[in-house]
């Protein structure tokens, strides 16, 4: 778990910088929330289904998603298993039971409930964990999801990352009640609030929650944490919060630092191992990064694939129309970046 937190942190730095250099179009870091992500996923079975928001890259990393695949998705190259269709960080993997991320906030929540209901009917021993931020909890879909999970008694864990901000909006402007945990009782859902920067606390809470979910009892975990980084590469958080505020969390309550202390106190980890692992991770991440950067983007006409399971006539005609147009005017388009041209 600790190594994944380090790898995640290093990968965030590299990809954040690559966006600043214009090599990828967008990025969103996980800084400060590594424990909440990895601790909760570690407490699940490998086949439990995960629905995420977007700041759960650590969850997929813990599940064994290859570094190259993170890079391929961010570059939208020909090896992106998503086909280059979505903005960077919208990862997905059926093999790792991680449902593809979409930008729309909270829409995954009632979907998670439906999937959990399917698992309950199949009696397949699986549960669903649905991640969301405290801002997304204000969406109507969150209300719909929790209510349905309760009335239909679904094996689902609602995992809320309360990191204090929704872009520039502090929680004081998000809700007037007692956080997100305070809403759960109203739906008849079990609830626990946990220190999201404490890897062990997150793990224990999720482990216990999974046990309850297995009995078809929905449960909400609110992990209290802090968003150390900017919201995204399109945000400069200095515009609405002070450096002093950020530094308090960075220096005094950093999830990676806290768990390193635990490991060192148990003599399971030391400075040399830390240094060696960081260098190894850096090398592997850079190797994957540079590899992905060299791969061309997918075939242009693949933009017409997967709209439907089969391609209807109108789409076939439109694909042929574009193919003919590129035949005539291809020199005015960035054809060389794409495969098959």
């Amino acid at each position, binding site marked *: 778990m600790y190594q994944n937190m380090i790898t995640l942190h290093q990968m965030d730095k590299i990809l954040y910088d690559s966006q600043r250099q214009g090599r990828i179009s967008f990025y969103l870091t996980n800084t400060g929330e590594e424990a909440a992500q990895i601790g909760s996923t570690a407490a699940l079975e490998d086949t439990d289904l995960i629905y995420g928001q977007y700041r759960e890259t650590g969850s997929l990393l813990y599940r064994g998603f290859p570094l190259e695949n993170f890079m391929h998705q961010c570059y939208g190259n020909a090896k992106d298993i998503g086909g280059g269709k979505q903005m960077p960080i919208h990862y997905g993997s059926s093999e790792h039971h991680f449902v593809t991320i979409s930008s*729309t906030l909270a829409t995954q929540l009632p979907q998670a409930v439906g999937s959990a209901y*399917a698992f309950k009917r199949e009696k397949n021993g699986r549960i669903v964990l649905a991640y969301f931020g405290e801002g997304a909890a204000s969406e109507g*879909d969150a209300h719909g999801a929790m209510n349905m999970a309760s*009335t239909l008694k679904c094996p689902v864990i609602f995992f809320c990352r309360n990191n204090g901000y929704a872009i520039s909006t502090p929680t004081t402007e998000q809700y007037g009640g007692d956080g997100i945990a305070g809403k759960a009782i109203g739906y008849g859902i079990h609830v626990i609030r946990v220190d999201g920067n404490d890897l062990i606390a997150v793990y224990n809470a999720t482990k216990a929650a999974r046990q309850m979910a297995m009995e078809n009892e929905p449960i909400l975990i609110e992990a209290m944490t802090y968003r150390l980084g900017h919201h995204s590469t399109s945000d400069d958080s200095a515009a609405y919060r002070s450096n002093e505020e950020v530094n308090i969390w960075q220096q005094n309550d950093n999830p990676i630092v806290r768990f390193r202390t635990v490991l060192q106190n148990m003599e399971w980890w030391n400075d040399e191992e830390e240094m060696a692992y960081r260098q190894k991770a850096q090398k592997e991440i850079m190797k994957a990064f540079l590899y992905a950067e060299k791969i061309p983007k997918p075939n242009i006409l693949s933009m017409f694939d997967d*709209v439907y*399971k089969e391609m209807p006539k109108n789409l076939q005609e439109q694909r042929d129309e574009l193919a003919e147009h590129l035949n005539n005017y291809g020199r005015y388009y960035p054809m060389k970046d794409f495969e098959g041209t």
Partner: protein
Amino acid sequence: MATTGYVIKSLINLIKIRSIRYASGITFVPSQADPSLGEISKMNLCQAINNAIDIAMGSDSSTCLFGEDVAFGGVFRCTVGLQEKYGKDRVFNTPICEQGIAGFGIGLAVCGSTAIAEIQFADYIFPAFDQIVNEAAKYRYRSGNLFNCGKLTIRATWGAVGHGGLYHSQSPEAYFTHTPGLKVVVPRGPIQAKGLLLSCIRNENPCIFFEPKLLYRAAVEDVPIGDYETELEQAEVVKEGKDITVVSWGTQLHVALDAAKVAEEEIGVSCEVIDLRTILPWDIDTVAKSVKKTGHLIITHEAPITSGFAAEISTKVQERCFFHLEAPISRVCGWDTPFPHIFEPFYLPTKWRIIEAIKKLIDFQH
């Protein structure tokens, strides 16, 4: 002499019109099922829907049916008896929350279950618009086909009912036809409804199935009792003709047929009437073939005219049949107002408005 004859005929028609009692309903025109489908039973639209869902649930144990009030049989009785037959875990009520219903259905389908979600009135599908348009329609595409919700069907009651006012009369198909990734289907009667609904449920793309509620009781046909599917994306020529093509769907298809009958008897114009059936993706080939023969096109739907689906049809037909068109394409649709309560008779594109359009089209070059 020609002028004299026209005057005399007009006077006769005027007399006839005065004696006609205004009909607030429509005249349902029954179809005949393909005899090869075997034994038939008289069913109204509601019973045909129930029968289709029964067959779907009987043939696929993963199928769940859910929505507001479906457990006791539904507010239009389309789901009567299904909970008793298949169990409370497969036919169940949800909380009153359309976005929850759609999202829940997506989640079921993502895990391979067949999900039949009911939205009680098409007018209340809009709270689920985000789940349908941003999620269901884009699920397969955005994941590179790693995930999909193809096994989701959303059925909703649809169309005018005589007194539904603003929120129990809407025909929202055009909102959804502008969304790649969805299929949108509207049947005209029990035989079509059963076959088309079974196709939707078994199709591996998210489908929206609109049920004309005026026809739930009024439309009765001899429906094959066995399992059969009617092909999606395929229009049907319901009545052959050589002078004008009229395209419509749902309840309005019967208004078009009624108008066509009057036009033939009183004006001598031979109308070909086409039921579009699948609104997205739609069957341009059948419509274009017809227009190339007749040279004229009228499209009619209850929904408001501006940006209604008739606009899409007329543009595509104009592109494809330019050299065959002898007159401008005519659209006879609901006005650009919300759907009114007491003014419903004046809002709807009545058979008289269609007849008037037929006359104008035929007279266009004279």
